[in-house]
């Protein structure tokens, strides 16, 4: 029972990781909180749903949805962030303008779905269960764990080992110095937004499948979770966000299983404050505290 709950927690935690990584990435590069990230996630589920019911094969629906949410995220950058970035001191105004974009996307989804809860048609994803060492694990859970592991590894490789990734980190550390070295910050922003949006869109599809429920407000609880993940993991730290997401998933699944369900959020945020009391920069925040301090 306990290990089963931990397994379930790891699965939802890995989807949190997918969602939170993009949020962290944008925060790391721009020092801006993109509140529309939750709506991008929701849009991913919606787009995949409408593609599927219109007859597109599910794998193509996912691909199309990731492409579309990547482009939505780029649009968010162009509409809500770019102008503010130019004038400087953009943190607060960008928060407000991204909340605005979030509200617009949510209202569109509400209109489109008629405020209904949508479900992927039966058989969209094969329902199959396996028994492994007494644990019950579904094919979907296995696929989610596998896909997230591959994507997260690819993202870390991209950031650490490729020229593009070095440019992303250079802009995150010191945008002006990066420009003097020939790094085009605008193109870095577009890339990070595209990646963040596509990952959020995929997370939306996976959550829509996992809980067999898609609705226009589905992004909001994940947005709050992403804040917790980013703060616990250390602002802007990719590794921290991954570990914090998995911890959060497990903590949530355990509290749901063993404690009154109304307490889940109280306990999660209680954990957040506990971590902050002990490590104000988050669990993995030391290096990034330095990076944040030197950013110009």
């Amino acid at each position, binding site marked *: 029972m306990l290990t089963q709950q931990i397994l379930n927690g790891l699965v939802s935690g890995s989807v949190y990781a997918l969602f939170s990584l993009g949020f962290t990435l944008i925060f790391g590069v721009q020092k801006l909180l993109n509140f529309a990230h939750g709506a991008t996630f929701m849009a991913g589920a919606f787009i995949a749903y409408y593609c599927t019911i219109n007859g597109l094969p599910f794998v193509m629906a996912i691909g199309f949805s990731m492409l579309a949410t990547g482009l939505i995220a780029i649009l968010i950058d162009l509409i809500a962030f770019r102008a503010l970035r130019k004038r400087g001191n953009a943190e607060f105004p960008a928060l407000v303008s991204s909340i605005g974009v979030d509200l617009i996307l949510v209202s569109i989804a509400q209109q489109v779905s008629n405020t209904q809860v949508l479900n992927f048609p039966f058989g969209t994803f094969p329902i199959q269960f396996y028994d492994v060492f007494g644990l019950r694990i579904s094919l979907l859970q296995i696929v989610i764990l596998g896909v997230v592991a591959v994507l997260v590894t690819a993202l870390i490789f991209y950031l650490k080992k490729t020229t593009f990734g*070095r*440019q992303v980190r*250079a802009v995150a550390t010191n945008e002006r110095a990066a*420009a*003097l*070295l*020939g*790094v*085009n910050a605008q193109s870095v922003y577009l890339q990070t937004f595209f990646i963040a949006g596509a990952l959020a869109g995929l997370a939306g599809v996976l959550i829509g499948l996992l809980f067999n429920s898609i609705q226009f407000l589905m992004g909001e609880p994940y947005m709050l979770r992403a804040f917790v993940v980013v703060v616990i993991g250390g602002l802007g730290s990719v590794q921290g966000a991954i570990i914090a997401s998995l911890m959060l998933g497990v903590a949530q699944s355990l509290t749901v299983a063993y404690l009154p369900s109304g307490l889940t959020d109280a306990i999660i945020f209680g954990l957040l404050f506990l971590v902050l009391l002990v490590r104000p920069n988050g669990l993995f925040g030391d290096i990034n505290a330095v990076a944040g301090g030197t950013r*110009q």
Partner: protein
Amino acid sequence: MSKLSINDLHVSYGGVHALRGVSLRVEEGEMVALIGSNGAGKSTLLNTLSNVVKRKSGDVSFEGRDTRGMSPYAVSRAGLLHVPEGRQVLSDMSVYENLQVGMIARGKRPTIYSLDYVYELFPVLEERREQIAGTLSGGQQQMLAIGRALMGGPHLLLLDEPSLGLSPIITDQVFDALKKLNAEGLTVLLVEQNAHRAFEATSRAYVLDRGKIAFEGPSAELAGNKAVIDSYLGA
């Protein structure tokens, strides 16, 4: 054609008329000094050359090309590399990664300085290639900032106060490296508060005073000019 020619440049920065009609040129293969007291506009001039600061009026021509309207990243990709004041290393990346990022400015242009060359010029960078740049000493960071600019294939190197905060021994090492680079053909515009060092290392110099060029000429001559000595070389 001069490597760099600046004609009647005016710049306002933070509400101050920081540059008031500056004209200056740097020829191919020269190392030219720009000295002046704090607040004379030296850094503003370099920042204007790399288009980090917008000019109000005047012309800047780099290798015969007007740089007006180019983004800072495009200027450095064209081969005008600026080592900014305070080094500005990418503090949470390793020495090696900083040098790799430096290569971005080179783009598809041919390599001028290889990684091996930079390691030979500043052996400490090779010894510490895995170290996080923010934990290097000031002198090592300065060497990294210069090495990183060399990786970008500079046609003209702008240096802003390379001796700032460095011990005399480290300053010697940095200046020796600059003299070697120049002797091998690199064109350099050197901004310095340390006028002695600057005059000694360069062939020509300009003295900037409150946004205007007050003196210009061969460095050796300026170093013996009484007015320059009184104002900039101390007692």
